């Protein structure tokens, strides 16, 4: 495999990656199917933005957002069956059950823990300690400006946290299990070690005072854009959308078995942040995962940061029984970032 030069990097030398939008297959089928799978993503985004913008206060609540989120995911699961991107990513009963387990952890025990040690608590602590007022001027901005800023600021933080995970070994150990997924499906975003899910959820949004409606609008970007990172649906994504937003194509490159390809497309929603920092690769990949696509069990996912962390510490500081230093980190275990 020769790979393709993108900037200073060779993409796809280790595992196949399709580089360039012009090389990505289009939706196959009649005009109705073409129309639906071209405009579905923008239509849902604009419909949700309009809904949250105009919904009466009695409806514009977090519980409504959760309901819409669940409904949208069910619809997207149906779309995975109707128009899959790759047959090799098709959802099986076992995959669905595993994914749901991680989603369940996020909605229950992790949420409970986050209520005590999450970013909200930390920010409250900082504000109380220094008697800072929230940035109240933020609420005077137009709703959509507030929403876009909240979303971009959060995603900017997420971009650097994610990039940090791919470049600093201790953080990588928490993120690596997520990279063992071998296919993209709608709930795959939840698959990973809980420490990583906690870290990636940290944000500085709590420092700002914003209107609840603006927060709901900002959440819409997460729901109607970021959700498509992990989805097995073939879309004819519009040019402007894929320039601004992260897509399943971008994220499949990020999850590729190819080392260089996986060091790209770090943002969650706004791929334009990757464009700004030179880490965007437009394309798609089918072969995903680590170690040639080895499947990681739930048990290993939960213990990986600790067991691998211990191994790394032993390799760095440990001595064998004869007093000799242990060999350095094994190259194969370093992240296919």
């Amino acid at each position, binding site marked *: 495999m020769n790979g393709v030069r993108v900037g200073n990097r060779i993409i796809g030398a280790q595992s196949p990656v399709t580089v360039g939008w012009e090389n990505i297959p289009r939706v196959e089928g009649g005009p109705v199917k073409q129309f639906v799978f071209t405009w579905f993503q923008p239509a849902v985004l604009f419909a949700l933005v309009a809904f949250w*913008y*105009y*919904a*009466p*206060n009695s409806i*514009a609540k977090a519980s409504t957002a959760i309901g819409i989120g669940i409904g949208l995911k069910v619809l997207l699961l149906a779309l995975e069956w109707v128009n899959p991107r790759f047959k*090799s990513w*098709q959802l*099986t*009963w*076992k*995959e*669905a*059950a*595993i994914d*749901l*387990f991680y989603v*369940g952890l996020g*909605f*229950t*025990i992790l*949420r*409970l823990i986050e*209520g005590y040690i999450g970013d909200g608590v930390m920010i409250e602590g900082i504000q109380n300690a220094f008697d800072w007022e929230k940035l*109240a001027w933020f*609420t*005077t*901005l*137009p*709703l959509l400006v507030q929403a876009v800023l909240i979303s971009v600021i959060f995603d900017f933080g997420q971009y650097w946290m994610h990039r940090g995970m791919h470049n600093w070994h201790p953080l990588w150990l928490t993120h690596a299990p997520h990279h063992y997924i*071998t*296919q993209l499906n709608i709930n795959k975003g939840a698959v990973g070690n809980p420490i990583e899910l906690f870290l990636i959820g940290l944000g500085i949004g709590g420092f700002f005072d914003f*209107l*609840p*409606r603006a927060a709901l609008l900002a959440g819409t970007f997460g729901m109607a854009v970021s959700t498509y990172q992990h989805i097995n649906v073939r879309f004819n994504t519009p040019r402007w959308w894929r320039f601004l937003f992260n897509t399943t194509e971008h994220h499949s490159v990020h999850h590729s078995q190819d080392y260089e390809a996986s060091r790209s497309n770090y943002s969650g929603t706004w791929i334009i942040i990757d464009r700004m920092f030179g880490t965007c690769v437009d394309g798609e990949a089918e072969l995903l995962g680590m170690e040639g*696509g*080895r*499947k*990681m*069990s*739930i048990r290993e996912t939960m213990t990986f940061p600790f067991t691998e962390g211990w191994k790394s510490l032993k390799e760095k500081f440990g001595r064998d029984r004869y007093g000799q230093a242990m060999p350095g980190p094994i190259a194969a275990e370093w992240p296919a970032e």
Partner: protein
Amino acid sequence: MNGRLIDWIWTIRGSVELPPEQSREDAFDRLDPLFHESGTSRDRTGDALTFDKKDQAAQDKMSIFDSGVLWIEQGTAGGMLHYRLTSRALLFCFLAPLLFLAFAGLTIAVGKIDKPAAETAAKKPEKKDVIRELNPVDKFLGAPAPEKPKKDDKTKDKDEGPSPISAYVFAALFAVLYVVGRILEDRLIRRLFRKRLRDDSSDSRQAVA
């Protein structure tokens, strides 16, 4: 205690009739590609084939099974393939509702322990609520104006503590998922074996890609 009374939870048993004239060797040869998947080891001895799987690929058609035995019995009417397959995924899914019920219990317990602290926090003098106003652009476009926060609701939320409802929902989801999986995977594996044994196309003998 008879293991069969409970091992149906994680074990799938069944049998498939061999096509007329099909020999034992031919039948196992046809099934063999199913055991060429990564992480699968198999052993054929006489009438039986045993297998073990580890870190099964997601698209392995037998990914939900971790081990099993298949054997062929010859009767007067012809051969019959019998199988007994065990699945940790099914057991895990069967037990998952208990785990989520435990999370619900934990959530309630934490809420009770944390209640005095929440009440103390609620007694702190609250800052004066500011009535927010929309930006003129939003007023022009007709977005509903924000309401003044209701103090009573705030106190109520804090007193209630974390909710166990989502844990109950996931317990129910896994109970349903288990029933679906137990029935579905039973049918799928029977269909897979039958198809393999009857399919005459050449690719049935090739390794599953």
